[in-house]
Every structure is written in structure tokens, then in C-alpha cells.
């Protein structure tokens, strides 16, 4: 390699590393600070704590209104599980119909589905709230989980349609000749081959549900039903003041662990999800 190229590449590496460090510094600082005594969080911008304590985790874990974070984490996981099952079932069914079946009105409904993809959710917000309230669902997880069973996250329908279209059609045809019905083709041929896209769907459903705050704020009214993100908000007072910073940072650190673990263990599914649908962020 020419000397100039080496210099250029080294400088590029240096720049990318420095900027990258700067970017994740706040997150690293949050993790480290969650182990610092409350009085030091304010005075110490460094990454190496002068004293280490678990006190923040103990005070933070106590939670809100007598309900501990154990409950909040369990609630979040339960809600995510429900949302994932819902999206997997309903979105894969719709995607199979759009990608593989011929029916009257297919192009029309597909265009409708693509339109809902761009639709800002706020325009359905108030009526949905009124509707769920009429059902007596406000205060439960149903307003958040039931819509997932009705494929309201059009992103995933689109993602799965794209994926199923890329599968060879010959397999379906062979199975049909062997006497498989449409349900059989769906369950035995298409679904097993769609697993990578289903993992992407499950992954992003988890992250969105875990990180979602707006719906949790609207529909979860009792502290016993709070999720982690809804509970974190209780650290911030109404005027924006925070009394227990240590506890807030400690619980925030715990709250980002699931996303981290999933991200590092399932990276390639992330890339697929982001590049096909431009998913969020």
C-alpha cells in the first residue's frame, strides 16, 4: 500500500473511533454512575468511580407506590410476549396472502396496507381510546396486545411480504401437487422458510413494545400494571425534577440490558430489518 493511503486509512479509523467513543460515552457514563454514591454522580464526569456502591440499585428497585421493579420487569416481559405472538401470527398470515395468493382486490388491499404504513397513529388515537374504554379495557394490557393480533403494525406485514416473495415458488407448487392445501403450504413450506424474517419481526416487536412509552402512559393506570418504561417516568417529578438520580440511573441501566443482549446476539436480523423497511430511529 502507498504511504498516503495508509495515513488516510489510519486517520479515518482514528476519527471513527473517537467519534464512536464520544457517542457511546453518555451510555457508558450512565452505567458507571449507577454504581456511584448519589452525592458523587453530580461531581464526577469520569468513567472510573472513586467509590462503588449498590445502594442505587437497592433504592431504585423499591419502585413506585409500593410496587417494586421486579413486578415492572415481569409486566414488561408479559406484554412483549403477547405482542410478539400477536404480530407473528397476524402479520405472517396477511403477508402470505399478499405475497402468494391470487384473489380479487389484492392490489387494492396491498395499496391500502402500504398507505397505513405512513399513517401517523395520532389520527386514530382518540377513537381507539374511546373504543377500548367502552370495552372496559383501559387499565389492562389488552389495548396494547389485541391490536397486534390484528396486524396493525404494517411494517412487519411489508417486511414479511418482501421476504416471502423472494422464496422460490416451485416449492409451493410441488407441495400443492402433493395435495397440500393453502393452509398446509403456509404452515409446512412458507413459515419454516420465513424464520429469519420472523425473528426480525419478533425482535423489533420486542424492542418497540419494551421502549414504547406513549401507549403505556395512556392505558396503564394502576402502578401494579406499570411496565418498566412507564415506571421509569415516575423518577421524574411533574416539574421535571428528579429526587433520586442514583436510583433513576440504576433502573435505566437495567432497562436497557434486554435491548443490548438481543442486539448483540441477533445482529444480522437487525441489519435486515433496518434495510428493508427503514425501521425507526
Amino acid at each position: 500500500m502507498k504511504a498516503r493511503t495508509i495515513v488516510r486509512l489510519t486517520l479515518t479509523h482514528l476519527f471513527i473511533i473517537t467519534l464512536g467513543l464520544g457517542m457511546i460515552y453518555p451510555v457508558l457514563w450512565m452505567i458507571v454512575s449507577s454504581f456511584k454514591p448519589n452525592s458523587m454522580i453530580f461531581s464526577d464526569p469520569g468513567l472510573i468511580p472513586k467509590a462503588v456502591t449498590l445502594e442505587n440499585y437497592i433504592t431504585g428497585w423499591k419502585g413506585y407506590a409500593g410496587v417494586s421493579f421486579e413486578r415492572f420487569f415481569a409486566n414488561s416481559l408479559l406484554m412483549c410476549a403477547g405482542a410478539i405472538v400477536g404480530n407473528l401470527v397476524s402479520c405472517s398470515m396477511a403477508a402470505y396472502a399478499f405475497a402468494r395468493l391470487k384473489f380479487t382486490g389484492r392490489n387494492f388491499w396491498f395499496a391500502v396496507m402500504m398507505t397505513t404504513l405512513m399513517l401517523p397513529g395520532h389520527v386514530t388515537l382518540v377513537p381507539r381510546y374511546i373504543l377500548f374504554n367502552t370495552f372496559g379495557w383501559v387499565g389492562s394490557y389488552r389495548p396494547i396486545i389485541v391490536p397486534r393480533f390484528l396486524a396493525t403494525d404494517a411494517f412487519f406485514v411489508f417486511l414479511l411480504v418482501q421476504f416471502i416473495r423472494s422464496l422460490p415458488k416451485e416449492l409451493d407448487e410441488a407441495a400443492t401437487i402433493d395435495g397440500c392445501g393453502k393452509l398446509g403450504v403456509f404452515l409446512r413450506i412458507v413459515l419454516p422458510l420465513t424464520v429469519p424474517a420472523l425473528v426480525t419481526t419478533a425482535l423489533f416487536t420486542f424492542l418497540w413494545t419494551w421502549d414504547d412509552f406513549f401507549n403505556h402512559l395512556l392505558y396503564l393506570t394502576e402502578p401494579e400494571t406499570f411496565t418498566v418504561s412507564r415506571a421509569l417516568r415516575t423518577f421524574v417529578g411533574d416539574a421535571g425534577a428528579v429526587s433520586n438520580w442514583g436510583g433513576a440511573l440504576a433502573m435505566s441501566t437495567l432497562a436497557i440490558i434486554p435491548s443490548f443482549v438481543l442486539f448483540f446476539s441477533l445482529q444480522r436480523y437487525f441489519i435486515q430489518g433496518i434495510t428493508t423497511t427503514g425501521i425507526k430511529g
Partner: protein
Amino acid sequence: MHKMPGIVRFLKRNAAAYMFLAPWLLGFFVLTLYPMGYSLWLGFTDYDFTKPDATRWIGLGNYLKMFGPLFGQSEFTASSGEVMRADPYYLKSLSVTFTYVFTSVPLKLTVALALALMMNQRLRGVSFYRTVYYIPTLLGGSVAIAVLWRKLFEKNGLVNAFLGAIGFTNLPGWITNPKYALGTLVLLSVWQFGSSMIIFLAGLQQIPQEYYEAASVDGANKIRQFFFITIPLLSPVILFNLVMQMIYAFQAFTQAYIIGGGTGGVLNSTLFYTLHLYIQGWTYHEMGYASAMAWVLLLIIGVLTAIVFRTSNLWVSYGSGE
């Protein structure tokens, strides 16, 4: 030959498909189409969630409430005969949101493109870098990070500790100063350029290397190559990122809600549109008004998206590159 009646033939041909489509169709009608129509109607009423029976048709009242101050009207008579007061904060929330969208989206896309270009050189460790740069995006929308952001930009927060260490004095509390509060939210958004960067990177990798080789044989320098090869061939991806990020940015909520502690912050400097909508609808129970606000948001996003698409044939090329 036996001939089936039309309806039976239709069912036979379509029944299976519509069964697979049933959950989505049900969701579309019950949770999208019906609510859209309902909220359009609510927007012309004074619907209050706590006393639905007292709902009255007020014509354009809610819309006058939003835009009355533009024409210097702070009071007006609705078609129900009731005297209504204009919303003194609506236009503020609109300007906060526009400022946020029109600064954060271009900044974010510029940073994302610059980093993607850097990583598109045959560099070692690109997948590792890509991972690191995606972390803020992975976490950025969460309440946890919004809480952290508050801490970073407080008067005695991390940012001021650094700035103080390199000699700055008289530093403001960025979150509590109405001049800077929105800036911290723009920064929070730009910080999450990871997914745009990944999309750009995937787009750049589609551009055939031969184009650049041919261009440099013809004597085009790097800058010319960037403007005459990279940008045109990447333009569909830029359009895609631009539209998606714009739609997201208009709907930003969590960050502003947490940083303002459930309010629009000091002097409503971070009163995002959706936050104002939430406060109107759920704090004040003005759900008719909130519905009207939602429809205006839909129109704004729709019109801007249409403008972007319409003007896109001036700068987006769908040439033979893809």
C-alpha cells in the same frame, strides 16, 4: 358443464385468501378506518371524554381555536353559539415541532451520510463500527435515555462538567433555558443516526465500483465523483430516509415528555405537537380538540410528503444503477 353461480365462484376463488387476510382486514376496519372517520367527526365537536352525552357540534370551532391567533382572534363564536377562546399555545407547538423537524432531520441525514461514506472505504472492522454507531439508535427512544439526557444537560450535568473543565464559565442549564432546551432534543435525535447510516451504507454498497474507475480514468476527482456518481445513484435511498425520518420526527413524543416532566418545558420551549395533543386530550379531556389537532397533523405530514415526492423527480434518479 356444470356452471356455478357467480357468488359461489367468487367465494371458491377468494375464500382462502380472505381467511388469511381476516385479522388484518378486521384490524384495518375496526382500528384504522372507523377510528379515522370517527376522529374526523369528533374534530367538529366539543367531545369531552368524561361527559360524552353533552357533546355538541361546533363546526369549525376547534380549527378556529388552533388558527384564530394567526388572524389576531383570541375569541370567537362557534356554530353552537358558544363563545370559545383560542388556544394560546397551539401555534407555539407548531413552530417548536417545525423547528425540530427541519433542523434534526437534515442534520441527522448529513451525519449519517458522512459516516456511511467513511465506512464504505474498504476499511477493516466496519461491522464493529456499525454496531457501535447503532447503539444510540437502539436505545435512543427509551425513557431510560430521555432520563439520562436530562441529567447530561442539567446545569450541573455531565456536559457542563466537560465544558467547565476546558475553561468555559457561566454555563447555562441547557434543559431549563428556553433558548437551548429544544437544541438538546435536536441533538438527542441526531445522536440516533445509526439506522439511517446503515441504510445509506447498504445503498452505497450497491453502486458498482466500475463507475468510479471509469470516472477516474476520465479524470474526475473525488469531489466530482461524489456529486455526479454517488449522490445521483444514492438519491432514491436519500429520498426514502428523508420521508421516513420526517414522518417519525413529526410524531416525536417521549423525549419531550420526559425532559419537560410531562409539560412543554420552560416557556413551552419543548412543547412538541404530539405532547400538546396529549395534554389537551388527556389532561384537559378536550378530545374533540385533540382529534382535530390529529387531523391537522395528518394533513401537514401528507402535504409535506407529497411535496417531497413531487419535487423528487428533480433530484432523484432511478437510472440503470440499481
